């Protein structure tokens, strides 16, 4: 098998692919996403980090200018958080353990901290009396005063921490004050996971069934064709709804298993079709005929001579189905049938519906951009694969 794969990669198609700059760029981008997903697995293993509040709701990202209102509520948010920490039964430890993102509080006794928080609140009230802060210079000055006062409560972030907290707010926050950047990055993992699993299983099932149908013909072929006629007659979204109701109340309810199941059930069809056709052609080839004349078993011929020669079709289909899965996930999340306990691009876009009506585009923009780049890369790669290996394909 490995020898055959090596042969595959040294083929003319592969050479053509390697010369294709766009395709190589796309591969690079896909690689970056994979690394990002691995990074998420290593450093953000649970979704908790991304459900945490990091600031007031709907603040725009770094590239937008903050309104005075948001700045004010940011200060308020920080003061409140500190106050909650001080007002616990054991302020010593809760202050020591206090983390706001990567910010930690400046050393000091609870008493001292509390008095400084009081000072902060005074400054806050001084600003809050103004209706329209931006219109009056005095108010703006007071606001700056407040901000420096609040900032003084925290030890200034340095090095990596500074970078991390910058990153955290770089794309703003959603309606619950959660970091959009973090959520978008975390969603990369979800997307890659769904894409990988769904595409891989579908291609495997499709290849096995398609190769068997094409190779053996007869009733096996009839059966497979009948099966894929059935499955392709139910739109996957409908299939998913049925599955969702099937899994309801079971152990898998709300998890990714129904999602995978629905995707695989409808995605295996296209690789199966293509590979069935290709195997029918391959079967007639001399060396396959020769192999069977020599008396090799069917299984061996299939695994060693037939299926490896459909590798290019498997790659093309994998790439196409990966796109399909990522895009389908978004639609599912919108219908409330997809990912539930984690953020995903679909969940983010779904949440952003209401924000868009208020003119806040950061969340939908971030999710769309993350998704666009990945899907675009896969689209370009699929095209290049098709060009290189299957130029006759329409």
């Amino acid at each position, binding site marked *: 098998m490995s020898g055959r794969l090596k042969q595959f990669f040294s083929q003319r198609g592969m050479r053509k692919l390697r010369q294709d700059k766009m395709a190589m760029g796309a591969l690079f981008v896909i690689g970056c996403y994979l690394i990002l997903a691995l990074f998420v697995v290593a450093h953000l293993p649970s979704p908790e980090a991304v459900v945490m509040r990091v600031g007031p709701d709907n603040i725009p990202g770094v590239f937008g200018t903050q309104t005075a209102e948001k700045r004010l509520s940011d200060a308020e948010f920080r003061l409140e958080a500190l106050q909650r920490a001080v007002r616990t039964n054991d302020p010593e430890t809760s202050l020591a353990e206090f983390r706001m993102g990567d910010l930690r509080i400046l050393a000091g006794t609870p008493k001292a901290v509390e008095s400084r928080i009081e000072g902060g609140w005074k400054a806050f009230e001084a600003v809050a009396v103004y209706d329209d802060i931006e219109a009056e210079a005095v108010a703006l000055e007071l606001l700056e005063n407040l901000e420096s006062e609040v900032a003084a409560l925290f030890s200034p972030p340095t090095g990596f921490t500074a970078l991390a907290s910058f990153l955290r707010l770089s794309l703003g926050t959603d309606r619950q004050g959660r970091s959009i950047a973090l959520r978008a990055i975390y969603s990369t993992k979800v997307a890659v996971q769904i894409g990988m699993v769904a595409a891989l299983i579908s291609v495997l099932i499709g290849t096995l069934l398609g190769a068997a149908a094409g190779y053996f013909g007869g009733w096996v072929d009839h059966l497979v064709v009948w099966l894929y006629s059935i499955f392709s007659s139910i*739109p996957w979204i409908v299939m998913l709804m049925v599955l969702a109701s099937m899994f309801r109340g079971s152990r898998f309810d709300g998890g990714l298993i129904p999602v995978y199941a629905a995707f695989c059930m409808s995605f295996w069809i296209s690789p199966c079709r293509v590979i069935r056709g290709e195997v029918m052609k391959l079967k007639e080839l001399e060396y396959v005929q020769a192999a069977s004349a020599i008396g090799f078993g069917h299984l061996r011929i299939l695994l060693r001579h037939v299926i490896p020669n459909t590798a290019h079709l498997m790659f093309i289909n994998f790439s196409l189905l990966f796109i399909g899965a990522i895009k389908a996930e978004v639609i599912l999340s919108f219908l409330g049938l997809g990912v539930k306990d984690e953020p995903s691009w679909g969940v983010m876009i779904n949440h952003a519906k209401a924000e868009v*009506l208020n003119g806040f585009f950061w969340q939908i923009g971030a999710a769309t951009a993350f998704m666009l780049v990945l899907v675009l890369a896969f689209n370009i790669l699929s095209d290049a694969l098709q060009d290189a290996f299957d130029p006759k394909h329409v």
Partner: protein
Amino acid sequence: MWSYTARRLLYNIPVYLGIVLLLMLALRVNDPANAFLGKNANPEDLLLIKERLGLDRPFLVQYFDLLKSVFSLDFGTYSWANEGITVGRMLRESVVPSLSITLPALILTSTVSITIALISAFFRGRRIDRALMVLAVVGMSVSFLVYIVFGQYFGAYLLTRETGYSFFAIGGYESGLANWPYYCLLPVLISSLVAMGYDTRFYRAVMVEESGRDYIVTATAKGASKRKVMFVHMLKNAMIPIITRIMTTLPFLIMGSLLLEVYFNIPGMGRVLYKAIQEQDFPVIQIFVAIFAGLFILSNILTDVLYALVDPRVRLS
């Protein structure tokens, strides 16, 4: 021709029987009555509701029952969630709203993307071709949902705010042709925009493939203009894959209009099914899915027949 059509019909019957079988099995994995009434339902209600739908009868009897009602188009079963309303009535009421989105979207998408594909193929390799194709790839890399969200924001919200006149509804539906543009045009436009990237690329590929054929050279050698060659010789040949494509986008459109219907609150078949699933309205789910699959198979048969109409090689064999 008629015997051909009849053969296609016959061929698809076992497929449909399989679909219904699978579907009914899948829907019975979780006891539907239990799911509908929740965990604390009292046993009498359960029995009652089961009896009413005949869920207590042997599976085969239920199977033939469902088949019978699909083939005779008689859906007298009552919905569980909506007291006193038959599934047949829900179906009748939701067909028109669904069609008023799906059909115009199908026509619009096909005409526009075939036109763009023709332009692209006509100027093959030139800058306009490349620009259109880049646009198509980018367009198909954006999620459906993003189109919907932004479509609603710009079309229904921003446009109204800026012009002071409401061109499109934010959502909802009212019957009547006069109301169509207000409620349905925006979803139709969005739906077409989404499908455009895929379709344009596909149609262009078909045309590029056809334009490399020998008979194209023959036509040129006879003195036909490039336009004649493309619009007469090539297009008629390209019709074969184009028809297949249009037909195979039907399920996509059903799904697409499901999303649009849910988002824009249009009481079409997709939304009815969606709500039925949320409410565990078993009779509705069962019949609607059976109908979706039936429609799909019908569209397949129609494809084959149209195919034969266009291609003399199929028709005459």
